């Protein structure tokens, strides 16, 4: 009796929940998680276990040896500080410059200078970094910007197109009446921007900021080419150490990879809303 009831219940559920699709998707999710699992498990292994050939085994015993060695080998505190500097600089500069420029452009659209500036700034979307990389290396070298600050400048400028696009699209939807009432109360444009417009832009700033964060934190190509002093390199670039030397200390290299990757994954888990919104808006709304 109970059995019959239960099968009946679950069979009616089959129509509602698509179990085959769920199963296939869970299996696909495993392929996403597998490399990440290998990274974490290898990082916590002892040297002996790390070289035994089985990447998928669970670390037994748990060992922090890899982290301790990676910390000193890659000079992690300095690398993390450089990555943090580049990332924070790029995020802040992108949000501020893009919000300023977008506000000026949208409010003065009838002026040719502002209208053309919009298309000019958007132009970077059609210029891949490799095309301008060689002269940029030369120029940053000559201007004394062959350091994290040069990377901040270049990364911000490449992020500007996407960010101005999102901000201008959003600013268009803010009714003028709102600003006019602020002005009637005697607010200057500067005050209106900071007290009214910038807070309204917050959701867009979150999206723009998280994309600038992910780009600046994860990028290898630009810092590896622009920053000339290896001591000032960001974390992703420092990992090439394990391709040349120490290439068999897998527990050390994976501990180092994990420390470099984890901040971006954690940041994503807390901001997924904005990440997902940004992809769709950037591609579709435009």
């Amino acid at each position, binding site marked *: 009796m109970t059995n019959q009831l239960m099968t009946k219940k679950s069979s009616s559920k089959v129509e509602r929940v698509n179990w085959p699709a769920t199963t296939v998707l*869970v299996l696909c999710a495993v392929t*996403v998680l597998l490399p990440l699992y290998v990274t974490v498990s290898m990082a916590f292994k002892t040297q002996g276990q790390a070289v035994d050939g089985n990447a998928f085994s669970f670390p037994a015993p748990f060992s922090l040896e890899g982290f301790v060695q990676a910390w000193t080998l890659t000079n992690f505190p300095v690398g993390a500080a450089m990555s943090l500097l580049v990332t924070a600089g790029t995020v802040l500069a992108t949000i501020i410059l893009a919000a300023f420029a977008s506000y000026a452009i949208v409010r003065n659209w009838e002026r040719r200078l502002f209208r053309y*500036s919009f298309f000019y700034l958007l132009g970077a979307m059609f210029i891949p970094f490799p*095309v*301008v990389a*060689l*002269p940029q290396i030369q120029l940053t070298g000559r201007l004394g910007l062959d350091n994290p600050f040069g990377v901040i400048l270049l990364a911000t400028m490449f992020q500007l197109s996407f960010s101005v696009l999102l901000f201008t699209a959003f600013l268009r939807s803010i009714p003028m009446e709102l600003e006019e009432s602020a002005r009637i109360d005697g607010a200057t444009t500067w005050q209106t*921007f900071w007290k009214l417009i910038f807070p309204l832009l917050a959701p867009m700033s979150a999206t723009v900021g998280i994309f600038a964060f*992910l780009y600046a934190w994860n990028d290898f190509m630009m810092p590896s080419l622009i920053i000339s002093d290896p001591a000032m390199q960001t974390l992703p670039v420092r990992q090439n150490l394990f391709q040349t030397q120490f290439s068999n200390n897998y527990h050390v290299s994976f501990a180092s990879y994990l420390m470099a990757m984890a901040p971006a994954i954690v940041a994503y888990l807390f901001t997924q809303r904005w990440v997902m919104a940004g992809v769709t808006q950037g591609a579709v709304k435009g």
Partner: protein
Amino acid sequence: MSTITTPTTSKQGPQKQGRQKQGHQPPRSRRRVEPIFYLFLVPSLILFTLAITIPGIMGIFFSFTNSIGIGDWEFIGLTNYIAIFSDPAILQSYLFTFGFSIVTVIAVNVVAFLLAVGLTARIRMKSALRTIFVIPMVVSGIIIAYVFNFLFSNSLPSLGAAAGIPWLESSLLANPDLAWIAIVLVTAWQAVPGALLIYIAGLVAVPGDVYEAAEIDGASKFQQLLKITLPLVAGYVVINIILGFKGFLNAYDIIVGLTNGGPGTSTRSIAMTVISGFNGGDYAYQMANATIFFVVAILISLVQLSLTRGRNAL
């Protein structure tokens, strides 16, 4: 991140806003731009010019010289360009990059579309699965390439040996004919989330009653997918193909982490040959290469604009 836009669409909005503004404000203030707006705009314009426009012009300029990056140089006309078209190393990098991009674009879109269909179906753990599927997008390309490098050169060969598959027993990355497959796999692994999110946005917009009607008419699930879903998200397919293709043409980080262009030069991308001009002393020569690459990028963008124009309804 690369994005797509139709300037015409973006233009309409602010213009509308501009007209509204004109309507609301007294005519006098319409004539004068508040100086502060220049202060808002000009820093971006100056930095952008310094960081992107000037290097761009410098690059095109030096492509007509014999500069090695430092010291004296002189104009040599089109010599660099003529040499490029008969340089097997550069032709190979174009062939590899385009071939790799086409295969990856197809793989990414097929996988992303099917995953999006699954993720918008009536499934369990929907939001958890969505969270997991987006993770590859937020992971550093070079580092995940190092992780896959380990898996391809250590774990996969031992699995191949255990299963008795001869071609898997040695590392994929060491095989000049197969190394590109590893690059496609890792690039696709990382690029699927972006395409997936765009497809989900497209699928969510398809009204449910279309499927109900098809069901009543006796269409199978597969027929519904092929005859209803696919045509309705065709615009998103176009966007994903172009966005993906443009991104893959710039491939660098993942290839450096997997093969560093090898074995030999079999997996050297265009970006990698251009960058080699930095160390190789053929600075001006690779600038000519970069200029050609730029023209290619512009042509693809023009195709993009002509295909996406008029898709404002998306």
